[in-house]
């Protein structure tokens, strides 16, 4: 799986959570720009985990602040599987 494919799949997943339809770039921050609260983050992470059959632990989540970092993290995790 390459980065572009992962990016596309995550963009589909994020849509229902992006209630205000904010344009997403690699620099979009989940809390500050997309206004995700902690419950939204949990639900969103669960969807990604199931889509790619990976675990993103709370510890790893703490390192992910923006969209680009999420795509990179999933790329790395999905590679191992």
């Amino acid at each position, binding site marked *: 799986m390459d980065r572009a494919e992962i990016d596309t799949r995550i963009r589909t997943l994020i849509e229902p959570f992006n209630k205000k339809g904010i344009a997403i770039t690699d620099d979009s921050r989940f809390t500050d720009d997309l206004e995700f609260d*902690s419950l939204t983050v949990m639900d969103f992470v669960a969807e990604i985990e199931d889509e790619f059959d990976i675990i993103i*632990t709370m510890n790893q989540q703490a390192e992910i602040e923006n969209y680009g970092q999420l795509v990179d993290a999933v790329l790395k995790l999905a590679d191992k599987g």
Partner: protein
Amino acid sequence: MTDMIGQVGHASDLFSKFDDIIAMREDLLASGVEDPFNLVMERVLSPTVAVCNGRETILLGTYNYMGMTFDPEVVAAGKDALDRFGSGTTGSRVLNGTYIGHRQVEDALREFYAMDHAMVFSTGYQANLGIIATIAGKGDYIVLDIDSHASIWDGCKMGDAEVVPFKHNDIDAMERRLRRIPDGAGKLVVLEGVYSMLGDIAPLKEMIAVAKKYGAMVLVDEAHSMGFMGPNGRGVAEDQGVLDQVDFVIGTFSKSVGTVGGFCVSNHPKFEVLRLVCRPYVFTASLPPSVVATAATSIRKLMHGKNKRAHLWENSRVLHKGLKDRGFQLGTDEPQSAIIAVLMPDLEKGAAMWEALLHEGLYVNLARPPATPANMTLLRCSLCAEHSAEQVKAVIGMFERAGKATGIIG
């Protein structure tokens, strides 16, 4: 190096991060309601009645499930220990803080649960903090329900393990996460018997079977079930016939037992080592002698509480039906525990209803985000075996009047 006289850089107020919550509280109080988080019990007359703001008030939000707080034998045991051992131990369990009473309460717990080991902490909060943070270390995985109690989350935060939450009570979501954990990693699954926000119980039988299939150890917090769930009052795991599959049971003295303190019971052969390595056990003072004496007496009485248990369940059923029939939205369709959660449309309405109930002479627990699941505002009612049938009937009438006055029911 900073200049000792001139200030370098901007002064920052570390409290600015609390501005939102300060504003929320001010908004709430500006609407004129009594402060729901600042109630004082001026006198406590029994496990079910207190005087608050000069009003005699029925207590329906204290988790005093078995009403042991005024049991004459329990109170007498505390007074006797106070006379014989003094007011406090002034020391850690591993130094000068283990008195005969601490041993006796651990004996009572071992008997109560029919388990090999029992370790008593100063609170249930510390029991979760200590056990979870200590047994799950670097490279291990903790898989936990997303609606877990704050003490469980804090235990995860304090330790070095990888933390993986799953959707509340969702067996498949839990299994998917267990399946993805790398081979060979240590795994701890953390569950609760009763979830205290909505009063719902966990499908422990199914969940523990899955956990065991993946070789995980299992910890169950039975804070809200001790004394009245399961044939011997050992909790939801006993009720579902899987207590022998549970590696660690966490409990508290602050609910059914009717005092303060926490514990872990286990059959793990190496369990006793925790007394040396568990920091929230070692680096704090032990419980006062009077507290462990009341706890031991209460635990032994809970072993024989069959009639009280039956009455508690009756209370729970009557209140659940009464509130449901009057049009309140409840946390569970059927009563599953001694907690009945009444869903409020929002915090403002919830606070108004809470206040209206207080004026009727009823105390319930107002729970608000972020402690609640899905940002709900709840009025949590916890029943007591000492609530009389008349009190429960009166409570339903109070809910009806307050609900109509605040427009929560039609």
